[in-house]
């Protein structure tokens, strides 16, 4: 047999589709993007008795309307690529809602197997499903299973294989929409040319046209002559009302089947509902969430931070050992390896223990079903700054390091909210920036240091709020992400699923550090090493001198400019650079020297500049990965550059005008 059987997994979010996919493929999967899109694509392999299966995990979607990039991607794949078998993963505990997608898949005329997942949850909530009857009514194989416990998987594979080997598909009667709609479908059929260069099944196309599906309307308009469109268009006038009728017809069908095959026991409130009295409570839920966040933070810093420091020592130690070992090699090659490779990308990798804990906790919270509740309690606050509840978590993580905050934005489904979150995440004052701020405030403000630091954090958060408002209002206008989210039943996390998700995110981070971050570290290393010795004679040094007039606006000389520029490698680099340029003698000498080259007003300007300056190299790489385009990266870098320069200049010039701290 040539090639593997191509199986696509379709299903709504929270149906356990990924759990099923993971249970079948394990580590034999890889994650990438769909060609030309920023939608995640997961492809895996499965093999049984010499038969090979190629599995594709489609993005979760409630319907085949093209409401989001994810849904459109799924739909195009199904309609155009036409996989050998489609598995509709269905949550047995919310069968009625899930039948809607099944119906849409049936309308597409695809070879379908229904995987009736979470049978255990259905039983727990007192819902008994007559599987044989469901199979008879739907006319496609239905396989009950519990993906979380790997129950029923082999029967599912049996069904897939059987369906794939079937040579002919008996096409049943088209699913009726009711007589009024059928008349309109017929009329439209008459108006639409018989031969169309479109890859969609005709009846499906007619239905989607009547619904006013934007992508289909555009495609048909492009495929027919202007004269034909004149005939078609009048029939699509009341598309909003028609969309309502069609959705209603599909749900009537789903509800009728549901009543036929499901017997429900009277029972008291489910465990999930009772738990939500606490977790969704306006005050109690918030307190719980805050405690939880604190716990995650505590774990990160108590368990993982010592490990990080140990790795850090190891890296620093390794760097100096390498220098000894490479004695006799050209100086530049030693510096390349020890400062560029190990000092740059190597240092980033020492954050793995902290991130591992973080990703693990996130995976557990997602798997248990708590994430939707966290989004619920935070929505009220996040809504005010143009974001939705789900953005809070990644942004909060940003206090430690912006990189996981940016990559963490992946947990948000809506593209506009995800991008907004990633684009403002670099404004969260990360721990590295706080280190620099601590040095400057201690040097210039003595006992008032803590207030200056605190004030600066507030400034950053205020800028973050304003920027996210602006971005969501202007750049994503009309794409306001609405907050409509399912509250899935709580369940025990599956060890396999949690570990796989953690591994997947860690792998992504390591790949990032090994490729983009490494490359950027090397570029910065090159600029700060050549052509002369020491930073001051390097390209970077020259750039610093060249930019001195700009620095002058903020009361900063070229040394401060260079220190700021090198913070692009890592925010804490500012201190290291100042240490190199302004001579040795340790912390206290540096403080003395600093107060000689700048006034308190200039110091405040520098703090503002440092806090709001362009994201570090690792964040830039992460931004590129998550937004999928350099244009968004340029936008983030650009707006932060502008705000930091304007802010710092305003502070310095304002202070001069008022005669403060000069």
């Amino acid at each position: 047999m040539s090639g593997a059987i191509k199986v696509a997994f379709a299903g709504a979010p929270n149906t356990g589709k990924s759990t099923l996919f993971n249970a079948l493929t394990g580590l034999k999967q890889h994650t990438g993007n769909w060609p030309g899109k920023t939608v995640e694509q997961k492809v895996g392999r499965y093999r049984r008795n010499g038969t090979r299966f190629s599995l594709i995990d489609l993005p979760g979607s409630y319907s085949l309307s093209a409401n989001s990039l994810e849904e459109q991607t799924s739909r195009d794949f199904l309609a155009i690529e036409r996989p050998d078998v489609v598995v509709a993963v269905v949550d047995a505990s919310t069968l009625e809602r899930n039948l809607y997608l099944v119906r849409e898949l049936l309308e597409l005329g695809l070879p379908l197997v229904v995987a009736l997942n979470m049978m255990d949850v259905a039983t727990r909530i007192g819902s008994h499903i007559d599987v044989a009857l469901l199979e008879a009514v739907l006319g496609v194989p239905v396989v009950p299973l519990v993906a979380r416990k790997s129950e029923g998987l082999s029967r599912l594979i049996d069904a897939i294989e059987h369906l794939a080997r079937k040579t002919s598909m008996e096409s049943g009667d088209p699913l009726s929409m009711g007589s009024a709609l059928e008349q309109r479908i017929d009329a439209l059929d008459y108006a639409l040319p018989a031969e169309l260069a479109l890859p969609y099944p005709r009846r499906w196309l007619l239905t989607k046209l009547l619904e006013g599906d934007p992508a289909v309307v555009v495609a048909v308009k492009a495929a027919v002559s202007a004269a034909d469109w004149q005939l078609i268009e009048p029939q699509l006038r009341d598309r909003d009302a028609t969309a309502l009728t069609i959705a209603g017809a599909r749900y009537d069908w789903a509800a009728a089947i549901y009543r036929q095959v499901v017997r429900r026991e009277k029972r008291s409130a489910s465990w999930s509902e009772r738990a939500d009295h606490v977790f969704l409570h306006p005050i109690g839920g918030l307190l719980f969430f805050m405690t939880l966040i604190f716990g995650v933070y505590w774990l990160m810093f108590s368990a993982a931070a010592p490990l990080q420091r140990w790795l850090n020592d190891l890296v620093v130690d390794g760097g100096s050992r390498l220098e000894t070992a490479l004695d006799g090699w050209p100086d530049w090659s030693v510096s390349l390896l020890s400062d560029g490779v190990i000092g740059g990308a190597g240092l980033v990798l020492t954050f793995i223990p902290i991130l591992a804990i973080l990703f693990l906790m996130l995976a557990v919270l997602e798997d248990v079903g708590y994430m939707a509740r966290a989004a619920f309690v935070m929505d009220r606050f996040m809504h005010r700054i143009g974001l939705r509840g789900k953005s809070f978590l990644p942004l909060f993580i940003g206090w430690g390091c912006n990189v996981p905050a940016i990559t963490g934005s992946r947990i948000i489904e809506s593209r506009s909210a995800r991008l907004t979150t990633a684009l403002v995440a670099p404004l969260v004052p990360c721990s590295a920036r706080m280190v620099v701020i601590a040095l400057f405030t201690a040097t210039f403000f003595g006992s008032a240091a803590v207030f200056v630091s605190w004030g600066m954090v507030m400034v950053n958060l205020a800028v973050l709020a304003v920027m996210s408002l602006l971005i969501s209002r202007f750049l994503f206008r009309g794409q306001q992400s609405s907050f409509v989210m399912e509250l899935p039943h709580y369940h025990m996390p599956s060890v396999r699923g949690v570990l796989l998700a953690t591994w997947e995110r860690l792998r992504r981070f390591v790949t990032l550090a090994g490729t983009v971050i490494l490359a950027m570290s090397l570029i910065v290393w090159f600029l700060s090493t050549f052509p002369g010795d020491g930073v001051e004679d390097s390209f970077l040094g020259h750039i610093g001198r060249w930019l001195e007039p700009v620095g002058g606006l903020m009361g900063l000389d070229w040394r401060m400019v260079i220190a700021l520029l090198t913070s692009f490698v890592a925010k804490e680099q500012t201190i290291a650079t100042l240490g190199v340029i302004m001579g040795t003698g340790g912390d206290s000498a540096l403080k003395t020297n600093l107060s000689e080259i700048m006034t308190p007003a200039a110091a405040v300007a520098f703090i503002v500049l440092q806090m709001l300056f362009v994201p570090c190299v690792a964040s830039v790489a992460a931004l590129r990965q998550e937004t999928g385009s350099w244009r968004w990266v340029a936008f983030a870098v650009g707006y932060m550059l502008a705000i930091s320069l304007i802010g710092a200049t305003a502070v310095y010039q304002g202070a001069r005008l008022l005669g403060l701290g000069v």
Partner: protein
Amino acid sequence: MNNENSLMPLGTLEPDETATMAALSGGRTFTSRCLALGFTPGAEVKMERNSGRGPVVVVVRGMRLALGRDESMRLTVRSRRN
């Protein structure tokens, strides 16, 4: 008022109150999404949690959903309230 079928925004229902979906507004993407989730006219909706501020929790077609406050005001229901 003795109006047996009063129309009102979903977000104004009291906790544990049940009503029937009547109309949707708020743009194509939003309504299309809601329709796919089962908020079709005629569907029964139960308000589960509504604290007067912030998002609400409703039950539709056996599924529990969180809805933003604004979103809950864009769905119109027919209440059996007297």
